[in-house]
Structure formats: C-alpha cells, structure tokens
C-alpha cells in the first residue's frame, strides 16, 4: 500500500487539482456560458506564484513556508479575478460558440505574452520553484481542502438567490431577464469567480510542478477540461469533479493494467502507448451513451432517495 501511494503521489495530487480546475469550467456553465478561459487564469496564477517565490520572497533555506504559498494563491486569485472582470465584461456579450472562441483566443494571447516577456522567463520559463513539502503527496494538504471548499461553495451557491439566477440564465436567458435577473451582471460574476479559482489552482500547481512555462495552461488544458465536463456531466457540480478524477487517473490506470503479467505484448503495448486513442474512443462512446455525462441531477436524486429510504 505504501509503495502504491508513493508510486502514484504525483497522480493523486494531479487528480485533485484537475477536479478543482474542472469546477472553474462549471461555474460559467452554470449560467449557460461555455468559456474555456480558465487555463489562461491558471497560467497567470502559476506565473504569479513562480515569480513571487523565486524572485520576490526570499525565505530562509529549507522548506518553503506554506503560508507564503497561501499568500500566492490569494494573490493569484485576486489578479485573475480583476483580469476576469476586465475580459469578462466585453467577452460575455458574445453568445454560445462565439464566447468559446473568444476565450480560446484569450488563452492563446496570454500564452504568447508569457512566451515573450522577460519576467516570465520567455520560452524557458521559470524553474526551481521552491517546495513547501518534503514529498509531493503532502500537496494534498493544500489541494484537498481547496477541492472541498470549492465543492462546498458551488453546492451552496446552487441553493442561493444568486445561484438560482445563474441557473435561470442557463435554462432560458430571455425568461430569466423578464423575471428581473440581470444577465450581464450574473454572467460576469460567474466568469470572475471561475477566474479567481483558476488563478489559485495555478499558484499551487506552480510549486507542485516545480517549473512553470508557457506550455502550462494552453488550449490542450482547455480541451481536457471540456472532456472532464463532457464525461462527468454538466448539470451538477459533481459531474465535472468525477470526470476530472476519472480521466486524470485513466492513463495511469491503463499503464498499470499493461504492466500486469499475462496479457499479450501487443495489447500491453497498446494500453501503454495508445492512451490517447482510448481516451478519444471513451469520449466518443461516452457522449453517445451518456449524452448528459455520467453524473446527472436525476441520478443524484435517485441515490439521495435511496439513502433516505434506507435511513428510515
């Protein structure tokens, strides 16, 4: 068991951080807005943490203080939130696929800017980002509470006046406006919250990955996040979280299966190297058989009902 955990420590933390990032896609989606801008804010948060920890803060030798990581996360969230507000107000005038395209462009622009600035280390990026923990598994001390708090936040949000306004916009923007919901305000709010969360994840990820460059938070990440939501389900926050956990673990799980003895060498080879093919097929099959994702509100209601019934 210990070796299992030690072998997969990087994976566990990656899964949890991916789940939080999946929630950053879910927040604007709650208001019916498909935005894939969060990798941009994730990259921004990462650069803020990388620059602060390598060039600004000069902590004593030894482990990097966790409280400074938390400060970087807060700053990452703040700066991303402000940028989210600035980008969101014009971008959210666009609808549907046009908003998605605009946010893809935003991610690309941030990537190019990072590639060409000195402060971000250009193409090389920033490396040797100090470690707050003696092993990677301990990053769960930050990642798990972050995921728990984000999930709690979204779960509670769905049952508040603001959350209902977001969901009303998703269901029918015109009817929501006729009921007094200000569409622009609520869309920008969801977008900004998403940006803040992505910035915070980026800040902790920079430490976790140890190096940060313009290959972090690119369009590839956008596609991954969409896959998380597509597979997990977009109508409840549980969906993206489950989707992220499964799809992040899947490649490693396949590799694990390939290493088990007794399977033909060609199959083992395929499981090891054909991961992207399997990934793609799963997404295609998933959308055919689970068009609303694995986790739907109806499914959660059924599970909840059974639990209540058995409690009686």
């Amino acid at each position, binding site marked *: 068991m210990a070796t299992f955990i030690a072998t997969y420590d990087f994976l566990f933390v990656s899964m949890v951080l991916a789940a939080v990032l999946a929630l950053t896609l879910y927040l604007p989606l709650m208001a019916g807005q498909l935005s894939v801008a969060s990798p941009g804010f994730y990259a921004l948060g990462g650069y803020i943490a990388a620059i602060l920890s390598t060039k600004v803060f000069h902590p004593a030798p030894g482990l990097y203080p966790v409280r400074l990581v938390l400060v970087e996360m807060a700053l990452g969230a703040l700066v991303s939130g402000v940028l989210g507000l600035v980008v969101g107000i014009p971008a959210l005038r666009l609808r549907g696929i046009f908003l998605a395209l605009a946010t893809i462009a935003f991610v690309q622009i941030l990537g190019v800017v990072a590639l060409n600035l000195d402060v971000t280390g250009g193409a090389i990026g920033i490396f040797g980002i100090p470690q707050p923990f003696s092993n990677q598994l301990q990053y769960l001390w930050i990642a798990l509470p972050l995921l728990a708090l984000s999930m709690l*936040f979204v779960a509670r949000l769905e049952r508040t006046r603001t959350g209902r*306004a977001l969901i009303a916009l998703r269901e029918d923007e015109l*009817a929501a406006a006729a*009921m*007094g919901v200000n569409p622009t305000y609520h869309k920008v709010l969801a977008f900004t919250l998403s940006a803040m969360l992505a910035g915070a994840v980026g800040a902790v990820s920079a430490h976790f990955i140890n190096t940060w460059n313009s290959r972090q938070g690119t369009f590839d990440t956008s596609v991954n996040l969409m896959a998380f939501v597509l597979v997990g389900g977009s109508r409840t926050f549980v969906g993206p979280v489950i989707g992220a956990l499964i799809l992040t673990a899947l490649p490693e799980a396949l590799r694990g299966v390939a290493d088990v003895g007794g399977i033909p060498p060609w199959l083992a080879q395929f499981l090891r190297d054909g991961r992207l093919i399997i990934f793609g097929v799963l997404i295609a099959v998933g959308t055919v058989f689970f068009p609303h994702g694995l986790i739907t*509100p109806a499914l959660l209601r059924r599970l909840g009902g059974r639990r209540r019934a058995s409690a009686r």
Partner: protein
Amino acid sequence: MSAAPAPAPGAADLLAVDAVTCRFGGVVAVNEVSFAVARGELFGLIGPNGAGKTTLFNLITGLTAPTAGRLRYRGDDITGLPPHRVAERGIARTFQNVRLFGELSALDNVMIARHVRTHSGLVGGVLGMGSARREERETRDQATALLALVGLGDRFDESARNFPYGDQRRLEIARALALEPELLLLDEPAAGMNPAEKRALSDLIRSVRARLSLTILLIEHHVPLVMDLCDRIAVLNFGQLIALGAPAAVQKDPAVIEAYLGDEA
C-alpha cells in the same frame, strides 16, 4: 385611430403607450399605436394572427426596443430599458409559447422570480448568514403559497417540463405573480386549454386580480373569454390599432367585424 393624439398621462393611468412603432426591416409590426391602461383595469388586446400583439408585449417588457414612440409606466419613461429593469419596476409577464425553466422544479421556477424582491448577496447566501437564511425561507414559503394559489401546491417538486400544458401556463402565472407585479401581462393564457380549464382560468384571473389589486393586460384569441373578463379592449390589425373601448362596443365596431370578428358577428 392610429393618428390619434397621445392620451394625456392622467394620474389613473398605470401604463401609457404613446405612438409606439416597431419595424423589423421592411415589416411594420406595430404602427403608431397609442393607448393607456388605467390602474386596476383588466385590459384586453385582441387581433388576428400577426397583428402585433406579442410584439407590443415585447416592447412593453423591454425585450424589443421600439423604433419610435414612448412607453410610460407610473408616469416614468421606460422606453428602451432592458428587460430586467422593466421587471424590477413591477411589470411581469407570461409567454405565448410557455418559457418555463424546464429542468427545474415548479418551486424553483417560482422562487427565481422572487429575485427582484429579495436582496441576499453572493457571500451572505453561500455562508448561510442569518438574514440570507431567513430570506431563503420566506422565499420558499411565498413560492409555495403562490403554487397553492394557482392550484399546483401538491406538485412543487416536479420538473416544470413534466407538467401538462395547461398546468405549465398556470405555473407561468404563479412565476409572474412571484415578482409582486403591479402590471401583469398575460400572453394567451388560455391557449391549448379545454373549456373547463378556460373557465377555471377566468376564475383564477379574476381572483388574483382582486386579491392582489393587479392591473392586467391580456392577449387572448378566445373571444368569449376576453369579452367576459375585460373592462376595455383594444383591437390590433396589421400593427394598427383599429378599435378601443368597452367589449360590447368593440364587438359592434364595423372595422373590427371586418378584420376579426367577421364570422362571429
């Protein structure tokens, strides 16, 4: 009639439509229409298909901006306000082609419409602070009461899309009432209902009007229902206002008979 001078904004008028025109490209959907709805009145809007009735509703509620003319509500100019600002001022509506939040429960549909009458912010709501929690409870109680008022009290938990058509229309009325409107716009509320449901709907409209001292603007194709309910009726044809007055008088108007009531007169 269409060239008639705008009615003087009397103190009793809740809504004044003043020479409002709406053009879509070359089509004039509403052509210099003027009328005023008095406070407490039940005002009917009838006319053949494509006469511009729903466009007029969209103009009043801010979904469409008029090409020309002014709209006044309680004496204030509301021309060109976005829909949510119009709703804030106390104008609620239903839609001809029912626009409920289909995936959500009946209760959530009604609770959403309490938006402008509640004030909890993001932080207070998520942290579950005392005032937000109290407001949430009140919102739920009010929504439950409204569902009971329209006769859907026992099915608050069902998804709106699973309701039969007539019930969806009543749910839409409950949702509109949750806004605590002073002016309620009903766009063909009886469409798709059988005679018994239509009678029940008439009773419902009468009772909520009396109980909530509402002013109601009603679009309806079912002429007996309009004649029976309304204090005054305006008739639109091809975007023009061709008649305005008491039901009995409008029914005898030769222009109306020609345009609309032809075979029934």
